[in-house]
């Protein structure tokens, strides 16, 4: 509290001493005081100094006052020193009257020199001040431009623009509002500084490019009005801001176009991949059924069972494929909405193994699941799909007769699951992409599949807030995924038996 009060007093004091009338009074006092001191000093050494030297030395305070207080006070100092010089050092002393014409000439020359010197000084100071201001302006612009460079998010642009404007100018508050564009809503960002100012904004500037108005900059100014240079700099800030927003919008539009093109390419690739996968089971079904309908052939019961089994299996395969396609389109559309409930990973895995017994017949599945594995908030059906796809991938690539191990453990606030199989080494460059859509490591004709399974796993795990990755092992290959152990920040509640 006390520091806050002290700060308040300091700020109040600072503002008080900046008041223009007080500044003039201070400068007047300063001018008078310095001339007074100079005169006393000269009077002490008067006996050693010739009048001409005194005149020369009187230029010193005039120069200093011009440098520090400006031309007006410099000229005032010149006039005052002219008068004091006359009054104290020209005979008759203590009077403005001059007897000798030589003294008069000295006085006039002194006055002229003082005026010319202070004017010259002032001009050179002013031009150096302008140079400094230009440099300051350039530095500020450079800072703004480099801060805006590469920003593609309009909220970031608004933030940078507001921050830089506040840093550069003495405003009490700045707000940037970016107009709505395509599907982006209006963005507003504002920030206040320590400078006290008016309650109401006094200036609005459009952020305008050559094409459209992208938004506006609203300013709550401090006490000092903007000078010309500052006004120009502020305009440049607005222009740069508008350009940055326009660029961000154009980049976003370009990205959208690229996404569309990409999805078009994926669709083509999907059609190619899927039509092959759809045709094969259809061909098998059609062949089996049409064979059975040939009345001329007396099918024995084994052959009949064989053909009918084919029909049923291939139908299941088709159904699975259609399900995968639907899931993929849901993931693509961002419409995957897991119904997260407290589920036991062990139960999900057991259910998957039961349903896929036929597909897993050639491999031995080993479960290493701790008895006390906590319940995890998951969508049961989606997680079944994840395990089904991971197991299906394992059986496709791992040699027949090998072991597939599923293990899980609790790590901090999440569960990590590992599906390990003995499939061959996967080159590192493929590891990163195996969860991408349609990414196939092998030739499509060697192992069946659409390349959708793992990308669906990724979609589902990510929709659950988890991560999925793959690693090569010395003796095989592993999929890993994690699932958060909390639902809405809560662990499963325990119910006591009453």
């Amino acid at each position: 509290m006390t520091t806050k009060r002290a700060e308040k007093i300091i700020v109040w004091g600072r503002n008080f001493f900046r008041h223009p009338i007080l500044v003039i009074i201070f400068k007047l006092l300063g001018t008078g005081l310095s001339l007074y001191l100079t005169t006393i000093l000269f009077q002490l050494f008067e006996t050693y100094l010739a009048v001409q030297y005194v005149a020369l030395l009187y230029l010193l305070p005039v120069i200093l006052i011009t440098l520090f207080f400006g031309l007006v006070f410099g000229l005032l100092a010149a006039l005052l020193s002219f008068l004091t010089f006359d009054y104290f050092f020209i005979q008759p002393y203590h009077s403005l009257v001059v007897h000798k014409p030589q003294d008069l000439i000295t006085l006039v020359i002194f006055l002229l020199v003082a005026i010319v010197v202070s004017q010259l000084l002032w001009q050179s100071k002013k031009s150096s001040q302008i140079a400094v201001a230009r440099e300051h302006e350039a530095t500020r612009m450079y800072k703004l431009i480099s801060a805006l460079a590469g920003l593609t998010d309009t909220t970031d642009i608004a933030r940078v623009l507001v921050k830089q404007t506040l840093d550069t100018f003495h405003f009490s508050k700045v707000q940037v509002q970016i107009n709505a564009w395509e599907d982006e809503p209006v963005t507003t960002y504002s920030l206040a500084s320590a400078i006290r100012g008016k309650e109401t904004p006094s200036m609005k500037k459009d952020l305008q490019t050559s094409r459209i108005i992208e938004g506006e900059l609203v300013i709550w100014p401090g006490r000092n009005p903007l000078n010309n240079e500052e006004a120009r700099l502020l305009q440049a800030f607005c222009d740069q801001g508008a350009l940055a927003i326009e660029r961000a919008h154009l980049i976003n539009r370009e990205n959208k176009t690229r996404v569309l093109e990409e999805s078009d390419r994926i669709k083509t690739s999907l059609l190619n991949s899927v039509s092959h996968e759809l045709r094969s089971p259809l061909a098998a079904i059609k062949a089996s059924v049409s064979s059975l309908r040939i009345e001329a052939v007396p099918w024995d019961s084994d052959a009949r069972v064989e053909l009918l089994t084919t029909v049923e299996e291939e139908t299941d395969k088709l159904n699975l494929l259609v399900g995968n396609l639907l899931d993929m389109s849901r993931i693509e559309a961002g419409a995957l909405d897991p119904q997260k409930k407290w589920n036991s990973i062990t139960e999900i895995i057991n259910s998957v193994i039961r349903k896929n017994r036929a597909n897993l017949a050639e491999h031995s599945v080993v479960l290493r699941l701790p008895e006390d594995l906590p319940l995890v908030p998951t969508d049961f059906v989606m997680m079944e799909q994840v395990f089904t796809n991971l197991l299906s991938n394992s059986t496709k690539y791992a040699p027949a007769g090998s072991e597939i191990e599923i293990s899980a453990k609790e790590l901090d606030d999440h569960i990590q699951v590992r599906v390990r199989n003995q499939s061959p080494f996967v080159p590192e460059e493929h590891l990163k992409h195996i969860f991408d859509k349609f990414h196939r490591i092998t030739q499509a004709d060697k192992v069946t599949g659409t390349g959708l399974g793992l990308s669906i796993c990724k979609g589902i795990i990510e929709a659950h807030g988890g991560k999925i990755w793959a690693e090569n092992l010395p003796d095989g290959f592993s999929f890993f995924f994690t699932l958060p152990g909390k639902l809405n920040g809560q662990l499963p509640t325990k119910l006591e038996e009453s």
Partner: protein
Amino acid sequence: MDRDPLILLVDDEPQIQRALKTILVANHFRIITAVNGEQGLALAAAQSPDVIILDLTLPDIDGFEVCGQIREWSSVPIIILSVRDNERDKVTALDKGADDYLTKPFGIEELLARIRVALRHSHQALGNKETIITADPIVVDLARHLVTNNGEEVKLTATEFKLLAYLAAHSDRVLTHQTIMNYVWGFVESDHIEYLRVYINQLRKKIETNPDDPKILITDPGIGYRFKTSE
């Protein structure tokens, strides 16, 4: 039963109608068909079928709506047959009063089993309630509050018995999580499914031969549980 049970099929797809007609007739059922919801409702009222097989996607009225309307005046078993396989639709249908739910494509064995269960339950509703439910080697005696495994009593806590008895009384039918939790704990709108998971897990350890591969207390993913009897 002196006559074959009558089944009303409400489905607008001719291929499904053709296939089911053939199959059900061959399995000694009588079948009448409706191609939309209105017709289905009319036939359900006029013909009093023993079981209704209902598609959710109908050209006129939504299948859920048909289900709800029938439930207003009849307790005839309704089996939903639909291509929609998301859990929310299944739960909605079951909550609207459907007795069971099968996703297309389905195995015909599965459908016939569900029809038999539906018929059994509708007979029970007429009076002669079964109080002894058998799922080898487990026997649940509802009247005597007794559960035996190969003739030996299984010790259950009060809540465990309440849960098991409720599932057994509705054997071979899926009960939604919400329905079960509502009955056992009185939770009306609750997400505390973890309680149910814990109790089912405990029950499985006590009554299943292999709790990791349950044969009696079957999980219906995302929907609920089913007590499977030895038919």
